[in-house]
């Protein structure tokens, strides 16, 4: 019964706000569900890319194909550690804002941005020095398409975080209003998880 009343209350509140606007709680849970569903569709996108990779690899009779070398492990390995730690700092940001500590959240967010940016720069350096290109047969195709799609997602995540940081600087993010921080964290953890799979299949296994 109480649950029912609560729900009705929310709707009454909505009525006062007029059309086109939503109750903040409702907007928040809608937004977070929307982000989760968006990530599900992204999982399927990477699923298609990985499926292509595994099919082509299984048909090639030896991987990497003759005449190709995998990149060295050291630099991408360090890069993996960078990205993994950026997930930790991102979670710090979420926990800090949950407690209302805006300054701590901004610090954690800045560190995450920095780690993510170094990752991208290192990857760019790797791309430039690999010695093979996108047109280097199926090896180059899969390698650059998969890492490139991931890199584009990292860039999008960084852009999103930069926006969140701007809004935080303007005092628009608080313990009550921090949906964007959480949404950014969901997305960032997803990008991170994709990288772990990418690293272990493209570079290691």
């Amino acid at each position, binding site marked *: 019964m109480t649950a*029912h009343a609560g*729900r*009705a209350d929310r*709707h*009454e509140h*909505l*009525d006062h706000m*007029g*059309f*086109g*606007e939503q109750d903040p709680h*409702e907007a928040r*849970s*809608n937004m977070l*569900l*929307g982000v989760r*569903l*968006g990530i*599900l*569709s*992204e999982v*399927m*996108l990477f*699923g*298609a*890319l990985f*499926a*292509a990779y595994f*099919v*082509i690899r299984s*048909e*090639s009779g030896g991987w990497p*194909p003759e005449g190709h070398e995998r990149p060295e492990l050291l630099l991408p390995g360090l890069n993996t550690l960078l990205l993994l730690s950026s997930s930790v700092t991102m979670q710090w940001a979420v926990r800090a804002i949950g407690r209302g500590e805006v300054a701590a959240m901004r610090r954690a967010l800045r560190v995450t941005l920095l780690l993510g940016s170094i990752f991208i720069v290192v990857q760019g350096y790797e791309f430039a020095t690999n010695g093979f290109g*996108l*047109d280097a*047969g*199926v090896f*180059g*195709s*899969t390698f*650059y*398409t998969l890492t490139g799609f991931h890199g584009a997602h990292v860039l999008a995540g960084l852009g999103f975080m930069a*926006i969140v940081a*701007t*809004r935080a*600087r*303007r005092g*628009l993010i608080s313990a009550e209003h921090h949906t964007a921080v959480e949404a950014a964290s969901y997305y960032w953890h997803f990008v991170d998880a994709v990288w772990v799979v990418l690293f272990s299949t493209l570079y290691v296994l």
Partner: protein
Amino acid sequence: MKALKPGLTRAVLGAAIGAGVGVGSLALASTAGLLIEDGQILGLGYLLALIGFLFGLGAFRFWLTWAAGREINVAEEHAAHGTSGDWRRYIRFTTDHKVIGVQYLVSAFLLFLTAGTFAMLMRVELAQPGLLLGKEAYNQIMSTHGAMMITVALISIIGGLGNFLVPIMIGARDMAFPKTNALSYWLLPLPILLVAVNPLLGGFDSGWTAYPPLSQQANLGQQAYLMAFVTVGISSILSAINFLVTVFRMRAPGMSLMRMPIFVWALTVTATLMLVATSVVAGAFTMLLFDRVLGTSFFRASRGGDVILFQHLFWFYSHPAVYIMGLPGLGAILEVVPVFARKPLFAYPLAVLSFITIGVLSFMVWAHHMFVSGMAEFFHIPIMLTTELISVPTGIVFLAALGTIWMGKLHFKTPMLWVFGFIWAFLIGGITGVYLADVPTDIALSDTYFVVAHFHYTIVGGTIFGLFAGTYYWFPKITGRMYNERLGQLHFWWFTLAFNATFLPMFWLGIEDMRRRVADYPAALGGVNLFVSIAAFNIFLSVAVFVFNMVWSWRRGPKAAANPWRAHTLEWQVASPPPIQNFDEIPTVSAGPYEYGGPVGAPAEGRATP
């Protein structure tokens, strides 16, 4: 200065600037000595034109304000929602779901007419053996017809009727993300235009399936189609997210999941399929585009790639896509039946379960499109079995319609006639599908007109009959006016008879081994083909009756009452057309949507109180 305000003028300007920058910069780079291909110029030009178009339209302004941390202008947000009676909101970036629904519906019908015109050209070529328009032209007309009709089937019901009705049916004021909703719609005009003008770029002749290696070699028109398809896919994913969040978070108090109208359930499963499957085909088409434009070799057998891989990825989306097209039609049919049979929907929970089962199974049947592709042999039998299995839940949906009609108090109004047309057409589509699911018969019938007849009986029988049923049924709600019943019935009989006269003989033509996607055929089949062409022209004429009825009734039809069909779902409890906020007060729902058979007349006491 008026042109600089967000709107269609500025959007066109933005698109022109975007295209100019994209084409210009690469052309400049090309003269500077860089090796630039035409495909790259087209790709960048299109991408920037799309962004410029949306910028000009004002699609991003609210998000940019938010991103910059500036104050959001509430007055401007309300203006974007639009005020009732202002027709210009239909050509603007309007966030009202009812406006977006009408935009989708009208666009879908315009596209339907265009694609139908292409079909008429095909039937002109096929009316007699020999060549009239030529092989090249025929292939391009066939491909464009297919691509456009697929788009119609994908967007018309969920985008048009769904957007307009779902929020009202579940007792919400709007969709969960109104701006994203508007973005989903406005992503569509440019790619559709690109497909329409693709003959200027050399056309494409691969059909909508775009199998490599043909699609890798064909000209720029092919690339235009691939890019357009990916754009439509992105629009689909955005609207799927929107529908799911709306349905799961924004239902009115008392609107439990099992009290949702069956149409909403059908669209919920549809949206789930769109969300999960579309990005796979977007990935596949992107790889194909990379093969063409950036020199990768995913599907280039000569360099270690795999052509059949493309077919797997393509059908992994495109078979569920058949249900993305079909389920909304089934939902609309089941929504209409109880109202005109004056009976509760038969086996409602089972129908819901069947929709969900169809959704799950649709991911396990894709390779039945590939029995002759040379894919792994061991895959044939499992796929045949899952394909036949999917006829069980589909049959239950059928039974829900039949069980509701059984012993009902039937009212043979136009929407109900389309239900009967659907039952006949979809039944034939379903039964002939069994022969295409069975490996031995499929190998014999593959790529013949038997397949053409089969999928027209399912997609037209399921989606288009459902679309017409729904459009007539909800016409008074959407426009506030009544359509002309006699013209509606004329449209139904003419269309249905012509449709059957067109496609029933095609089964026979297929068994006689007339090949699909070919401009010519053995002279002995000339007589039947002439008959089919004449019947096909009749379909077109009957649609003209529909268009006249819709346009004329929208302007001059008698005013419709709030609930002319005495239906029980929420959308009929508000005025026709619905007020701008949908409900003065959010209703509390206390009963299911189909509790007919109570006291004659008004809706049962104590249920939806708006």
